């Protein structure tokens, strides 16, 4: 017979719930009380510019390939000076899961995460961000990196004139 155990097991929960009723709830009242998020929290994505003020994105599609929920899409186009850029660039934030894999894939450090998580709204179409909404006027995390100055393509300056870059070899100087 476990009758005493059963009676205790029936009455004890009443005491526990009564005690809990007079404790402070653990709920965060979100819109009024902002949550204390970690400093490296990943949320809304941005497109940064290089130190010269040009767009970093070269529309290589690696971010959209890396995206597990397929929320990034773009159209690549080339400017007259040889720069590739995105004709349009679209991130659907109703799908985005803030995993940050696009930033890991990006070879030019163009797409980066910010801590801004407050994207809630009533109209889902307002969460489809176009290039104008994504592009910012700063370099983001890395203030020195400029893809066109590192890649050896003569777009930013002629070939061989970037810091630490040797002149291109004249392939014909061995010819008789």
């Amino acid at each position, binding site marked *: 017979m476990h009758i005493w155990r059963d009676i205790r097991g029936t009455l004890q929960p009443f005491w526990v*719930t*009564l005690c*809990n*009723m007079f404790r*402070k*709830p*653990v709920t965060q009242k979100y819109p009024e009380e902002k949550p204390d998020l970690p400093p490296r929290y990943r949320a809304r994505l941005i497109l940064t510019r290089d130190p010269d003020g040009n767009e970093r994105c070269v529309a290589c599609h690696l971010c959209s390939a890396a995206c597990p929920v397929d929320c990034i899409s773009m159209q690549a186009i080339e400017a007259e000076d040889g720069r590739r850029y995105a004709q349009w660039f679209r991130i659907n934030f109703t799908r985005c899961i803030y995993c940050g894999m696009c930033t890991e894939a990006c070879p030019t450090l163009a797409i980066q995460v910010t801590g801004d998580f407050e994207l809630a709204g009533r109209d889902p179409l307002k969460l489809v961000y176009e290039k104008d909404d994504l592009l910012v006027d700063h370099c983001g995390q890395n203030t020195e990196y400029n893809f066109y100055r590192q890649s050896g393509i003569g777009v930013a300056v002629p070939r061989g004139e970037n810091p630490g870059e040797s002149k291109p070899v004249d392939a014909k100087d061995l010819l008789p």
Partner: protein
Amino acid sequence: MTEPLITLALIIVKLVVVFGVVLTLAANLVLAERKILGRMQLRYGPNRVGPFGMLQPLADVIKLITKEDFIPAQADKWIFLFAPGLSAVTALLTFAVVPFGPPLTLFGQSVPMVVIDLNVGVLYFLGLSSVAVYGIALGGWASNSKYALLGSIRGLSQLISYELSMGLAVVPVVMMAKSFSLNDIVMAQEKIPFLLLNPVAFLIFLISVLAESKRIPFDLPEAENELVAGFHTEYSGMRFGLFFVGEYINMIILGSMVAVFFLGGWHGPVLPGVLWFIIKVLLVCFFFIWTRASLPRLRYDQLMHFGWKFLLPIALLNVVVTGAVLLAIG
């Protein structure tokens, strides 16, 4: 004015007042339950609509009324439409016999604070509480859904296992008050409530009433995690709302029955009688909510065992002992 006309007018006034108070209480009880449950689980509960979420019942009603009233294919249409009303109306009807205050003197005549002082009030209550289960049984049957049907089967089998002990728990009360009228039962508790005279009957009645209200730990007919929503799985909109409100009206009714049978009805020091009555009813309702926060759901067979093998013998024994004591006292 002639005497019958005054009586009729008084009855109508009392009806309207009782109807209004009970429905308002039921709506706010939903809010109170969500709030108290929330606090017991370290949450706030609804706190968005109006100050402290006080307008939540109103928002709920608007939502329920504007939702689609869906009737499943091959459902027994008329019974399906009729069942929710049955469960709400039987709950409301019970309140006709509940004395909620001391008699008042109006126009030179004594007005009892009860809609109708039936001399078989106890039987009326027991009868209606048995009829109430038809709402569940028919609703589940007419839905043409296996979950709903399972829920109503459970409701019926639950009924026969607790109704007996509930009736037998009231028998000592009737024996002590020497009357079936709820008014006389309250009057008999003027000095000392039956809770102190017969605590065993009180406990049995409280447990049976928990089962009657179909709430945790005896909410088998609607066991959410087994039967989706039990007997009201297929209901939507205000028909679901009627079942829902019926449950809370039932809670108030059963609370007032516990108050009338065992807590001394409207008797109490200092405060006016009506206030005492409401306080006692709300205390019982709080106990219902508290139980919901504390206990897990019993298994189907556990309830049957508990009802038939534990509550019923004790209730029978209690009747015999009470009778013997009453006989000895004379």
